[in-house]
């Protein structure tokens, strides 16, 4: 019996001591400095953020910037929210998670932040469009964007005298020409379903209205109508890819493109580091997906890749704004661009990475629309649906399923939109 008691004492002591030793959460101040905690979701940018934080802390003696770049940051951010342990600033992408965070009242209104004036209006509008229902205020400061279209092997193009296409017909002509030389026009890697979304998005921004998802939510149109051309052109692209594209993944496609097995790859600029890891000397450039039949009809597919949002729990908004001021400085942005080959959202002239040459006119002009998939709820698995469609090649079945699934997975959002409409009248 005695031993039993000691055992219980031990166990309870263990539990107790751990409770005591457990949470010693850092408070808002270290050495009299205000601490601003920034959690950003791109682990690949950890090095440049460390440099930026170091630079910031060296130049500011009243604020201490603490940057965290965790792996699987979205899961970690969500667990932080569950613990009600909110960082001051979060760096996330402009995707549906951002919409959810606004809807959950986690993000603060930053429309009083003067630095917003420096941002290209196109990107502020993109963020605006991500709100489920028009919400008073601005909730994110766009920092950098990425761009998707078609990456191409510049060396191969120059050797063969191939021209950059500006219309769909030219594009198809080019693919035929490339195929004749025995080189694959594309290597898709559709085994990883998310890669199906890259050409889909790039085509859809050319061929469907930018706010098609909101239009559908308002009941003004259907996807069957708006996405038909996109779907048909996806099928056309498919015949220029490798045989059995559903057997090969993103990694295979990057390797194949890097080794010159294919001339082009329909993916975003974010794939360049992976490609270059296989072939460091490769000369990659990109062009805007020419989905339309006229050059003017094409738009660059570009979305907010990283934006900074201040949380509602942030106690010292002024300090947070000072951090944002620093991050939006010309040098800071350039430092990030050099490291990550990104597209700046700040309306100043920057030196861009060479693989963005072909997209430069669009970037400078601000002629761009957001990735369509930023509006798709992830649980609807549009990427998997596109893969299914490319396997079955049945346009009608795909589009009608898209419409019914959309209504099912967005039920709460559609109800919210209708409620908003009823209150505010149709715009």
């Amino acid at each position: 019996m005695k031993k039993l008691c000691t055992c219980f004492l031990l166990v309870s002591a263990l539990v107790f001591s751990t409770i005591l030793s457990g949470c010693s959460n850092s408070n808002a101040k270290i050495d009299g400095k205000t601490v601003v905690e920034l959690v950003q979701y791109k682990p690949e940018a950890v090095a440049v953020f460390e440099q930026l934080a170091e630079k910031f802390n060296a130049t500011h003696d009243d604020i201490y910037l603490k940057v965290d770049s965790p792996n699987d940051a979205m899961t970690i951010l969500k667990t932080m929210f569950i613990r009600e342990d909110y960082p001051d600033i979060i760096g996330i992408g402009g995707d549906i998670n951002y919409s959810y965070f606004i809807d959950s009242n986690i993000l603060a209104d930053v429309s009083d932040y003067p630095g917003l004036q420096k941002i290209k209006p196109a990107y502020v509008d993109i963020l605006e469009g991500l709100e489920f229902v028009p919400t008073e205020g601005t909730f994110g400061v766009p920092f950098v964007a990425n761009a998707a279209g078609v990456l191409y092997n510049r060396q191969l193009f120059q050797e063969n005298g191939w021209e950059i296409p500006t219309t769909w017909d030219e594009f198809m002509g080019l693919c035929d020409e490339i195929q004749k030389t025995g080189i694959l026009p594309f290597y898709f890697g559709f085994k990883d379903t998310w890669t199906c979304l890259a050409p889909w998005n790039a085509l859809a921004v050319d061929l469907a209205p930018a706010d098609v998802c909101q239009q559908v939510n308002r009941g003004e149109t259907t996807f069957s109508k708006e996405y038909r051309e996109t779907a048909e052109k996806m099928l056309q692209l498919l015949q220029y890819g490798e045989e059995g594209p559903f057997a090969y993944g993103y990694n295979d496609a990057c390797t194949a493109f890097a080794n010159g097995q294919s001339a082009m790859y329909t993916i975003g600029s974010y794939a360049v580091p992976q490609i270059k890891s296989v072939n460091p000397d490769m000369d990659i450039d990109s062009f805007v997906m020419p989905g339309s039949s006229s050059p003017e009809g094409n738009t660059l597919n570009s979305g907010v890749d990283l934006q900074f949002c201040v949380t509602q729990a942030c106690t010292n908004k002024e300090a947070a704004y000072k951090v944002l001021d620093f991050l939006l400085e010309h040098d800071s942005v350039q430092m990030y661009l050099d490291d990550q080959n990104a597209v700046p959202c700040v309306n100043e002239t920057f030196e861009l990475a060479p693989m963005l040459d072909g997209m430069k006119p669009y970037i400078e002009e601000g002629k761009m629309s957001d990735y369509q998939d930023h509006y798709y709820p992830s649980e609807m698995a549009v990427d998997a649906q596109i893969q299914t469609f490319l396997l079955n090649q049945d346009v009608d079945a795909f589009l009608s399923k898209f419409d019914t699934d959309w209504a099912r997975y967005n039920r709460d959002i559609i109800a919210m939109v209708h409620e908003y409409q009823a209150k505010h009248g149709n715009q």
Partner: protein
Amino acid sequence: MKEKINERVNWPVTILLIVGLITVAFPLYMTIVIAFKQPSEMTNSISGILSLPKSWSLANFAEAMRVTDFWHSLGNSIWITLVTVGISIALHSMIGYTIGRSKARSKFYSFAYLYIVSGMFVPFAILMMPLVKQTAQLGIANWVGVILCYVVFYMPMNVLLYSGYLTNIPMALEEAACVDGASSWMTFWKIIFPNMKPMHATVAVLTALGTWNDVMTPLVIMSGSGSTTLPLAQMTFQTQFGTNYNLAFASYLLALLPILVFYLICQKQILNGVVNGAVK
């Protein structure tokens, strides 16, 4: 005709087992080769991937160790694994014993048995959010919380194992001790616990294995605490748009060694701990 069964080496079986080893050796060979290669040596051709690396440099291993803060994360992983295994063996063998011995006669214990074992089938995903909140509220959003979660997660499997093993330990053993006047508490520790040695080793291996490679539990529970485990640190190799397989493979090979050693040690215990003499 088979009287020498214990002494003779069974060569046919040995050879069959060695041939069957190809299913393990081939993937292991690929892992090792890739761990030594550079990213630029990766290709999509079979001969390319199976070929030996250009140089057998340990650079990948050194870099992998640097990136994952190897010794530190290894220490955390070992600590969490060992404490989990220790607590599991002590608590689970106790409850496995009380339940295993009583479940045939008592409704309460047979209910407790079903209750615990059915806990095995609760998907972790549904427990995750509430557990995150609960551990944070208790102030154990750190390695302690992770260990407590593991002790509970592996309880169903281990109770199953212990109470199953118990059916092969004759009641006569305890009854003899009982007659000698030992309390049931003493009986357990003096007689039953040592006799369950092979099962302790099995439980240790299985529990250690589960905790060693687990990512999700430490990810969601420890993420705020600033410390990291080896699998957590290994996530660095995989970002959304790129994976450095060469570094990752080097790192996984390094992570494989400690648990393999642990297994070999336990394996000896499984063999040596045969319910000996006493059974007969």
